[in-house]
């Protein structure tokens, strides 16, 4: 395969897509131009194709604010919840069912940690890393809970056939499925969301420590030329 000339090289598509989706519209084009200019003129000749692509990805991720990252993650999770509960309501007990929560949980913890890592790269402060993890966790989980609340109320006939919902009703004081589900949502909002936010802060701080240990952030001393 023929390598493109540096002046024609194209940055990774996923990073360009993240830039388009998650960076404020006002600066999207100018920042993309700055990054492409540096990518082609300086980074690609110095680091090679693989190194330059990693560099571009890191720069793009450093541009995304914790709030936007949290909201984007929340949208993905909410769509996943809708797909699982509405489109495939009885498959594996629905999205977020008790059959396979562990892999999703691990991915979420990693993403919250990644938010902390990115915040540490930007600021060099562990407090900022913890805050970033907490913000991403809070927003993503709040949106997911909101999605489940809406789904449970709008598609009550569908979700009330799910085994875990039937189990919940049997073990509640109420005979009303809607009231039972909404009480569960209220408990989640009051008790689970703060816990998950705290877990996000811990993961974010861990991500910040990882960034510090890797010596890969903004405060790394440059090798003398």
């Amino acid at each position, binding site marked *: 395969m023929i390598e493109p000339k540096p*002046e024609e090289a194209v940055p990774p598509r996923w990073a360009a897509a993240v830039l388009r989706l998650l960076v*404020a519209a006002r*600066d999207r*084009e*100018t*920042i*993309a*131009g*700055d*990054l*492409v*200019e*540096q990518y*082609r*003129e300086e980074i690609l000749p110095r680091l090679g194709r693989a190194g330059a692509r990693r560099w571009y990805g*890191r*720069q793009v*991720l*450093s*541009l*995304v*604010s914790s709030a936007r990252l949290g909201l984007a993650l929340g949208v993905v999770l909410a769509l996943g919840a809708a797909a699982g509960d509405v489109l495939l309501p009885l498959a594996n007990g629905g999205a977020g069912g008790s059959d396979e929560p562990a892999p999703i949980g691990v991915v979420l913890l990693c993403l919250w940690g990644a938010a902390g890592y*990115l915040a540490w*790269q*930007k*600021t060099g402060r562990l407090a900022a890393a913890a805050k970033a993890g907490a913000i991403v966790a809070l927003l993503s989980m709040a949106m997911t809970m909101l999605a489940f609340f809406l789904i449970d109320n709008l598609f009550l006939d569908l979700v009330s056939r799910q085994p875990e919902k039937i189990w919940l009703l049997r073990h509640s004081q109420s005979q009303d499925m809607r009231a039972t589900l909404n009480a569960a949502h209220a408990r989640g909002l009051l008790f689970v969301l703060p816990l998950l936010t705290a877990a996000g802060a811990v993961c974010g701080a861990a991500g910040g420590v990882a960034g510090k240990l890797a010596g890969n*952030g*903004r*405060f*790394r*001393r*440059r090798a003398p030329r």
Partner: protein
Amino acid sequence: MAELPGTFEQAVMLAVVRLGTGAYGRAILQELQARLGREVAAGAVYATLQRLEDKDFLSSRLAAGTAVRGGRPRRYYTVAPSGFRALNDARSALDGLWQGLPWPLAGGRP
């Protein structure tokens, strides 16, 4: 005295002053990395530029892009009068804090 800019904000504004008419995102990033002697995340610079514009310390204008940028425009920054005042105030405040003290301080030396 108006709100004093933070250390990194001062570094960004001073980079804009040094670069003069050539102060756009990439040039500011490179100037900062050269002056500070460390890697600086692009996100930190753009977030700071935006914040300084919000505080009216900087102003910006768009200019046509070059071929290597795929025709994307450049945003050039200049320090606004209130930005110069803020930088002068920050320098005065720091000079006042150091007045009468020897430099470098001996206590932190091994």
